[in-house]
């Protein structure tokens, strides 16, 4: 019997001929990532146990994305602690505030995350790795065991295969599809599958999805409790990876006779622009049902829409236009490399001319109310990964989600707007 992509990646890194869903394995990941928000907790716990070294300082990426612009004393103290921790551990690849950017974006752009890679992360949105054909597994607070020993027990997940049929209509984007997939994966969703701790493996007509689109499609299943998302890498993506690879890599594809818990299909050819209603990214609704809802807070960025192409999508609509009166817009590039490219290619001017604020690369407002907050009674539309009550601060705000195009179109009109009017 064949293996799924996740089984193959876990077999390779566990030095086993085969891994199958349900096995407990101890993989040796290609690297380990930890973000700025949890370094202190992990280091203090390990120090208390007398563990002062990490398993391999060259294979730990410390990224700074949750608190980049220190807006309070606590954030500044955390940043200072993290710098000392990086020194004490001898971390070679420490990306301090202002360097690197979003941990679930820039490592792909810089060739850390490659087809076939396995890495462990404290944060669940590491599932973005699936966009390029890699697997990353969230360890939560148990990242301390990984940092100390280089591995941790891992339950090989089951996989669910989702075959995409048809072509996405003009003006409908990956985030729109993601919200609908989230809805169908939900408790009473049409797909009828339990996605908890499963890998959602995409198949079918995937050539229409760029790397950025694939990464966008990773975020909503993650919110529905998928442990991973996987796209078999296309020739174009292999080429993208090859020119920036930090190490040799071997792409992984599922076997034709791999065991899936379920196989589902979805025809995308009649999809319309969507929003996710306040409460969760799976609360997909046709945009038309809420068109005209006034908004004052808009934001483009996050794990879900942090690639350069997402910024281009928003800029394409904002070019030559101004934000509506009373609307503020926060643009958060996924990487410092993207910020530099925006300068070179004129996107920075487009955003500034429209009246948007471009802040340093990182999570931005999506990191639970650290920057770009909202007030009670305000409405927001953004590309955040999640929109639970209070995500951007005030619990009385209404948080809608949309594609970068929808967010930009809405910022221009001051109300939730179908982006096709501007395309």
């Amino acid at each position, binding site marked *: 019997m064949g293996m799924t992509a996740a089984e193959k990646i876990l077999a390779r890194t*566990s*030095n*086993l001929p*085969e*891994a*199958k*869903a*349900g*096995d*407990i*394995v*101890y993989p040796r990941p290609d690297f380990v990532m930890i973000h700025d928000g949890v370094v202190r*907790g992990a280091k203090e*716990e*390990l120090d208390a*146990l*007398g*563990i002062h070294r990490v398993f391999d300082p060259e294979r730990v990426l410390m990224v700074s994305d949750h608190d980049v612009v220190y807006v309070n004393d606590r954030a500044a103290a955390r940043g200072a602690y993290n710098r000392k921790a990086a020194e004490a551990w001898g971390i070679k690849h420490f990306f301090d505030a202002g360097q690197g950017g979003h941990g679930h974006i820039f490592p792909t752009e810089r060739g850390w995350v490659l087809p076939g890679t396995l890495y462990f992360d404290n944060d*669940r949105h590491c599932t973005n790795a699936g966009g390029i054909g890699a697997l990353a597994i*969230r360890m*939560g*607070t*148990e990242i*301390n*065991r990984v940092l*100390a*020993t280089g591995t941790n*027990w891992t*339950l090989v*997940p*089951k996989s669910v295969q989702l075959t995409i049929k048809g072509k996405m209509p003009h003006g409908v984007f990956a985030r729109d599809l993601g919200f609908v997939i989230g809805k169908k994966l939900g408790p009473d969703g049409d797909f009828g599958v*339990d996605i*908890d*701790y*499963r890998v959602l493996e995409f198949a079918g007509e995937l050539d229409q999805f760029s790397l950025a689109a694939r990464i966008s499609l990773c975020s909503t299943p993650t919110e529905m*409790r998928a*442990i991973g998302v996987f796209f078999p890498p296309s020739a174009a993506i292999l080429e993208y990876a090859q020119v920036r690879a930090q190490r040799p890599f071997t792409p992984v594809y599922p076997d034709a006779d791999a065991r899936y818990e379920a196989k589902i299909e979805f025809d995308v050819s009649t999809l319309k622009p969507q929003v996710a209603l306040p409460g969760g990214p799976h609360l997909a609704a046709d945009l038309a049902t809420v068109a005209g809802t006034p908004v004052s807070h808009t934001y483009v960025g996050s794990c879900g829409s942090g690639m350069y192409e997402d910024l281009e999508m928003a800029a394409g609509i904002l070019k030559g236009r101004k934000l509506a009166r009373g609307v503020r817009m926060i643009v958060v590039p996924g990487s410092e490399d993207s910020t530099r490219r925006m300068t070179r290619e004129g996107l920075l001017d487009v955003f500034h001319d429209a009246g948007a604020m471009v802040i340093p690369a990182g999570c931005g407002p999506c990191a639970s109310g650290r920057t770009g907050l909202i007030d009670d009674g305000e409405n927001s539309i953004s590309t955040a990964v999640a929109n639970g009550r209070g995500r951007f601060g005030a619990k009385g705000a209404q948080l809608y989600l949309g594609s970068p195009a929808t967010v930009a179109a809405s910022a221009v009109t001051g109300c939730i707007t179908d982006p096709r009017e501007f395309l």
Partner: protein
Amino acid sequence: MRQTLARVFSVLSVFSVPSVAAFDFLKGYDMSSEFQWVLKGRCYKLGHDVWHAGGVVPNWIITGRHFDPQEIIPHLFEETDPGFHTRCKPGDIIVTGRNFGMGPKMNGYIAMQALGLGLICESMPFLAYRAAVGCGLRVLTDCVNVSEFCETGDELEVNFRDGFFINHTKDIRREYPPLPDALMEIVELGGNAGWLKHWQAQKQAGGAA
């Protein structure tokens, strides 16, 4: 015996017996220690779909990153059953319906472990289960329909190592999937922190690879 247990539709049902890779660090660990795998106590029954935030501990315990058991204990089940911690006794067993502990948080399990309680669930999201094991809690999941076989206050006996469940009050016996062998050492050692402490001690003693 473990191989014959019924398989159900959930994550942990796919735990297959070996093909588990050996983990060198803990070779020689004595699994025949005196750890108390059998709990005898009263049933405390909860329903389906209990969120960790609010349902197990108040959200401020989670967002405030409170991990000291003594801080958390007074607030365990506070929003649904104030004073629970004053009435429970070591050995009591929390029995839940499906989907217990949503939200991959650990604070409540820290308190349950410190109070000497056990937890058996019809199902848990995998990351909730992982968090419970990581806290060293005696926990079973995929216990199909278990909440139909007991009521709050019943006298229960549960062997977390073998998966045996006895309701002495109602004279009901069931077998459920036990804790996988690979995770027993973590629970025996008191959770992830205890495991790391042991690992470090082994390493310092020259016992680690």
